[in-house]
């Protein structure tokens, strides 16, 4: 998008009566001076970031956060590290904001490899002109999401870029977690005959964001599913230790996640269209824009590959949790067509589900 920042709420004059530029102590919006590393930067950190994200490590205000993991490692735990860049327009959407996404996205990446998430770092690239109240609100949401997910933000950084050079706000998070001894999820464990399960309805996040984008605007009860999955997955792994692998169907949706599994494990996957859980309103919104719900992003769902005999237990466990109520078995791993995902259509036909090539664009044809 060209630099028509919607947060352009700068009402104060930039020059004094004589035409001389006023000094940058504008308290209402983020300015380049806030990124300078001096008093204004410290101001921002103290008034916006620390109150929202503060924890004993961060509050030491040192250049790096020191954390204790020795005891978990001694018990056989391994360190898991993930990173995620978050850029979303608009910054706030039904069901969440970039603040929650920044936490959930990285937490879930850790969760997918079986790790218990522990710490996050967060880098903020702020576009000049973002109102400080908006920034505070988003960081506060991020802090709340972090606490709910049981993670502490132990290091952070902020930079400010010129107007037109940023999408309001970008957040980059790195996550650190511990994979308990005995857990080894991954493609190598996948076998023909395994069941493929998804934890809930598809396409909620992507369509929620699209519904509030300008010029595609329509009204609908579309809500992002952004959520941390650590508890859901912990319950699943406790009930089904034989779980093969997990994947979160974020960008590229379920289609991308299944293709990645099929390629990594060198197996085929077959899914049943009739089994795919999609809210009717999401299906309608997708139809309207010519999009396939399979390719639309999710931010609070997990795809699990489990041995066929564990499928019933896995489903029961997921459904017992608020984030997994709509969990359903959608298909199976097959030895045929390795690397390819096929779908049995509702009218009894078949088609391939390819890896989406870049962003799926709405169409009229």
């Amino acid at each position, binding site marked *: 998008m060209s630099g028509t920042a919607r947060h352009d709420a700068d009402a104060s004059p930039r020059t004094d009566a004589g035409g001389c530029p006023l000094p940058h102590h504008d308290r209402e919006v983020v300015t380049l001076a806030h990124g300078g590393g001096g008093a204004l930067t410290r101001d921002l950190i103290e008034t916006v970031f620390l109150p929202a994200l503060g924890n004993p490590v961060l509050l030491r205000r040192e250049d790096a956060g020191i954390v204790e993991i020795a005891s978990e490692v001694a018990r056989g735990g391994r360190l898991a590290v993930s990173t995620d860049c978050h850029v979303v327009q608009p910054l706030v959407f039904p069901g969440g904001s970039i603040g929650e996404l920044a936490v959930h996205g990285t937490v879930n990446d850790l969760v997918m490899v079986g790790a218990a998430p522990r710490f996050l770092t967060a880098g903020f690239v702020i576009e000049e002109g973002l109102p400080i109240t908006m920034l505070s609100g988003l960081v506060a949401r991020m802090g709340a999401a972090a606490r709910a997910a049981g993670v502490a933000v132990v290091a952070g950084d902020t930079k400010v870029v010129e107007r037109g050079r940023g999408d309001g706000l970008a957040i980059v998070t790195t996550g650190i977690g511990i994979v308990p001894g005995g857990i080894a999820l991954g493609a190598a464990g996948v076998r023909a005959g395994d069941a493929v399960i998804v934890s809930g309805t598809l396409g909620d996040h992507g369509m929620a964001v699209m519904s509030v984008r300008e010029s595609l605007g329509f*009204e609908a009860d579309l809500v992002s599913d952004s959520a941390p999955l650590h508890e859901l997955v912990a319950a699943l792994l406790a009930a089904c230790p034989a779980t093969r692998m997990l994947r979160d169907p974020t960008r590229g949706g379920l289609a991308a996640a299944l293709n990645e599994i099929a390629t990594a494990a060198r197996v085929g996957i077959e899914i049943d269209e009739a089994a*795919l859980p*999609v*809210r*009717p*309103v999401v299906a*309608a*919104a997708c*139809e*309207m824009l010519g999009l396939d719900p399979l390719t639309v992003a999710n931010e609070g769902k997990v795809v699990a590959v489990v041995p066929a005999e564990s499928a019933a237990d896995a489903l029961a466990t997921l459904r017992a949790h608020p984030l997994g109520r709509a969990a359903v078995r959608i298909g199976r791993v097959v030895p045929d067509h390795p690397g390819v995902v096929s779908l049995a259509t509702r009218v009894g036909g078949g088609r391939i589900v390819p890896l989406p090539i870049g962003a799926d664009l709405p169409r009229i044809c």
Partner: protein
Amino acid sequence: MCLAMPGRVESVRDEAGVRMGRIDFGGVVRDVCLACVPDITVGEWALVHVGFALGRIDETAARETLRALAAIGGLAEPTHDDPDRGPADGVEP
């Protein structure tokens, strides 16, 4: 070509001389230009393409089509294809 969807007319209005309506597509509501079907009324179904209603969906014709289809393949009476007892639009989990 021609992704057009049927939707139910929720309300109609005139806006700067143009007939407009709010149309419900299975839970998604959009503003649609009704310049081509200015006499369409609330509760009727419109066929909508790129934000314009191209015509009405004729419910009687739909019923007729389904009745004729039910007779194909030697079925004596319609079963779950009964047009008056159809399942809800959209996909259910």
